[in-house]
């Protein structure tokens, strides 16, 4: 269970998050949505102790991120931020291997090796595993970083826009893989996602942030509605139900006459 209580955060005097409080049950995929600058990435980095919590508290299964030793947290939760790059020359396999570092501290065993191979296979990276990171495309590199976090094999996985740079095929594959992992292994994913339709299709629950405040928490059916999206994004978006799934057609402005159509 993830507990976020009364979290406020300021960066050089500007409020980024204000009194954010919510609880997420263990297991499943939670999508974090909201307009640019809503505080999604800041919240994620506070949860992963990348930034210090200024006010409030965040805990994973009762372990407070501010007081639990960082080595212990690394076995419990992992994070991947946006815009990852590595200056050292590393192969894909080596990078994914680093995901096991919290467990083996530099001396991998057979189990570590197995989990690395699994993560590589899950992200369809087996053909690329001997390639150096600087020889990959943006999407391939993104998959390599996600594979590293998967190899870390933590109960909680925080991903900041994991679908960045991915084509349709790999984006869908990644979401399917995350959903399968969540179901089969009981892991919890918290994902910042911009494509609301991916959130609707794969998330078990959606957390909407706006102007640094919690706006709503609910199932995709609760959140992906025309009035709710209008509140969160200040944008009029048609939502259609296709195969019992809310689908937001956000690319085009709604035409009034089309709405009359049944």
């Amino acid at each position, binding site marked *: 269970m993830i507990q976020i209580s009364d979290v406020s955060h300021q960066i050089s005097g500007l409020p980024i998050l204000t009194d954010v409080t919510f609880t997420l049950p263990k297991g499943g995929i939670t999508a974090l949505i909201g307009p640019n600058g809503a505080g999604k990435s800041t919240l994620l*980095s506070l949860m*992963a*102790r*990348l930034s210090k919590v200024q006010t409030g508290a965040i805990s994973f299964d009762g372990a407070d991120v501010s007081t639990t030793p*960082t*080595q*212990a*947290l*690394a*076995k419990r939760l*992992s*994070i*991947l*931020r946006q815009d*990852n*790059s*590595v*200056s*050292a*020359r*590393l*192969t894909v*396999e*080596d990078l994914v291997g*680093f*995901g096991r*570092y*919290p467990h083996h*501290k*530099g001396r991998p065993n057979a189990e570590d090796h197995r989990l690395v*191979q699994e993560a590589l*296979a899950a992200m369809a990276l*087996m*053909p690329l595993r*001997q390639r*150096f990171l600087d020889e990959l495309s943006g999407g391939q590199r993104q998959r390599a970083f996600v594979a590293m*976090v998967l190899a*870390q094999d933590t109960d909680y996985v925080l991903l900041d826009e994991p679908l960045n740079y991915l084509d349709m095929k790999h984006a869908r594959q990644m979401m399917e893989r995350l959903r399968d992992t969540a179901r089969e292994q009981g892991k919890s994913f918290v994902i910042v996602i911009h494509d609301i339709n991916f959130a609707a299709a794969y998330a078990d629950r959606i957390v909407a942030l706006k102007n640094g405040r919690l706006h709503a928490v609910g199932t995709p059916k609760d959140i992906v509605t025309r009035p709710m999206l209008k509140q969160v994004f200040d944008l009029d978006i048609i939502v259609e139900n296709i195969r019992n799934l809310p689908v937001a057609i956000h690319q085009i402005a709604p035409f009034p006459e089309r709405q009359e159509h049944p």
Partner: protein
Amino acid sequence: MPSDRFAQMALPQTGQAPLDRARARVLILGALSLVALGLFLTLGVPGGAWGFALPFRAGKLVALVLVAYAIATSTQLFHAATRNQILTPAIMGFDALYLMLQAGSVFFIGAMATQDLDPILKFSLEVIVMMVFSTGLFLWLFSTQARDLYLLVLVGIIFGTLFRSLSSFISRMIDPNDFVVVQGATFAQFNTVNIDLLWISLVLCAFTVPVLWLLRHQFDVLALGRDTAINLGLPYRRVMLITFATVGLLVSVSTALVGPVTFFGLLVTHLAYRLLPGARFGPTWIAASLVAVITLVGGQAVFEHVLGFKGTLSVVIDLLGGLVFLTLLLKGAQR
């Protein structure tokens, strides 16, 4: 498709071949270093002068090996901690800081007192000050998220100029007799190694070896950048502190023994990165140190005993290293 993947997974030797190649290359470098050491000790010794030449050269040899180790190691640590492979402590004007401390201590305590101080005690104090300075300065510069490389190059140039100007300013203010003392410290070279500090330098360097070896995996994680390192449970701040303190120590040692050499570290670490592509900190560290020994000791042997030149090795090394630096900067610009 899946069967295809499993077939690849079953291949046991993948990942093993580059490792063997890396080991072979390190062994070759080790052999070449031994050759360089041998040449330096024996080349051009006039018959009958062995009794004098060997101990004399041995002292200098130890100093050169220490300098090679210190510069290669400090540069590689700096690369890991700052997540770039272009800047080095020397390019960031760090040896200039050491020279400024020299001038400053003469200015504030006076030349007589400086000379009366036990050189080992004095050097130890300087090392401590350098460790504190480097830790403070670099933590301030690099603790936030990755900064623009060109900004850092600029900062380095400004720092170097600032420290050099300050030390020359201080040199002008002190009286000429005191100045001679400062000059003695600032004009150490490959040819006129500062032998007084040999033992203390040896002890300090020997102390860093096991520490760095134990931490070698942590440096690999450190090089992945702050966020990833913290995600993987690295005590980031502590490792950064140790890294920059060690850099300060090693820069003090090398600058005290032979004075500033701007691009040597860049040259040898990049040769090591090329020789062992994708290798971890441990093997690369050994390779960089060996390349440094080969370049420095071998080069000095040839220059001193074959060509009979004096004081030109640092010029050649800085020329080559400077070319590497420019190439890297231009390559970085293309990306």
